[in-house]
């Protein structure tokens, strides 16, 4: 990411906003698919997790390029009449835990707001500097 040297904090803050945006997209996918026993290939949906990476060495923004699939064990629920039930009547359900997703959502939203606050504060700071020229 090219950084315009005079306004670095703006570019860095907005990289944070974009990363959290993608993160919330993952969370909403998890929540929407909390009960999806088929993700298109016959296997149940597995929850997705964001992997944040810092850009450049030293001062830089953040990117969310990597999305990892949570490979922990899928819970088995007793649903005898379900089309995907095995011979004992158990269905493998997605490993999405709604309280966990809600907490992650709150953290992502707060992080997004924090980045917006950085941008706003910086803008006001530069504005007051420009007031010197009045």
């Amino acid at each position, binding site marked *: 990411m090219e950084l*315009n040297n005079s*306004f670095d904090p*703006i*570019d860095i*803050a*907005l990289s944070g*906003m*974009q990363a959290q*945006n993608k993160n919330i997209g993952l969370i909403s996918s998890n929540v929407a698919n909390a009960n999806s026993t088929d993700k298109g290939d016959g296997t149940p949906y597995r929850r997705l997790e964001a992997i944040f990476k810092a850009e450049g060495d030293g001062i830089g923004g953040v990117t969310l390029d990597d999305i990892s699939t949570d490979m922990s064990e899928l819970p088995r629920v007793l649903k005898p009449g379900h089309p995907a039930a095995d011979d004992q009547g158990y269905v493998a359900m997605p490993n999405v835990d709604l309280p966990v997703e809600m907490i992650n959502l709150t953290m992502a939203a707060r992080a997004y707001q924090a980045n917006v606050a950085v*941008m706003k504060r910086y*803008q006001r700071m*530069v*504005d007051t500097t*420009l007031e010197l*020229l*009045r």
Partner: protein
Amino acid sequence: MSKVSSIVDFLEAGIRAESLRQNAIANNVANLQTPGYRRVDVKFEELLAKSLDSDGSVDLDEAVPQLYQPKQTPVKSDGNDVSLEAEVGEMIKNSLRHKLFIRLLQRKYMSMQAAIDVK
């Protein structure tokens, strides 16, 4: 246009570039959901730097602000590459630069005025 090296001409060229960039950003935001649309930006500072001579003068015919598609942002599934956050960041930077140039120009005019007003 002949060669220019006065700060007034540079500031005015900068203000024109920022105004053009303002249009580009508005266009991008308006096309936030248009499939296949790629964001536009204004190329000016690099042209200015390139055509800057060793004595600090520039032929402003060579350094004209122009619209172009950087094509460097990742494309979403509908072919559109505009991100709202990026455009807001550009808007903030653009308005700060614009304000800076206008105020500097104002200062320059005021000092020219003061020189004329000396009795």
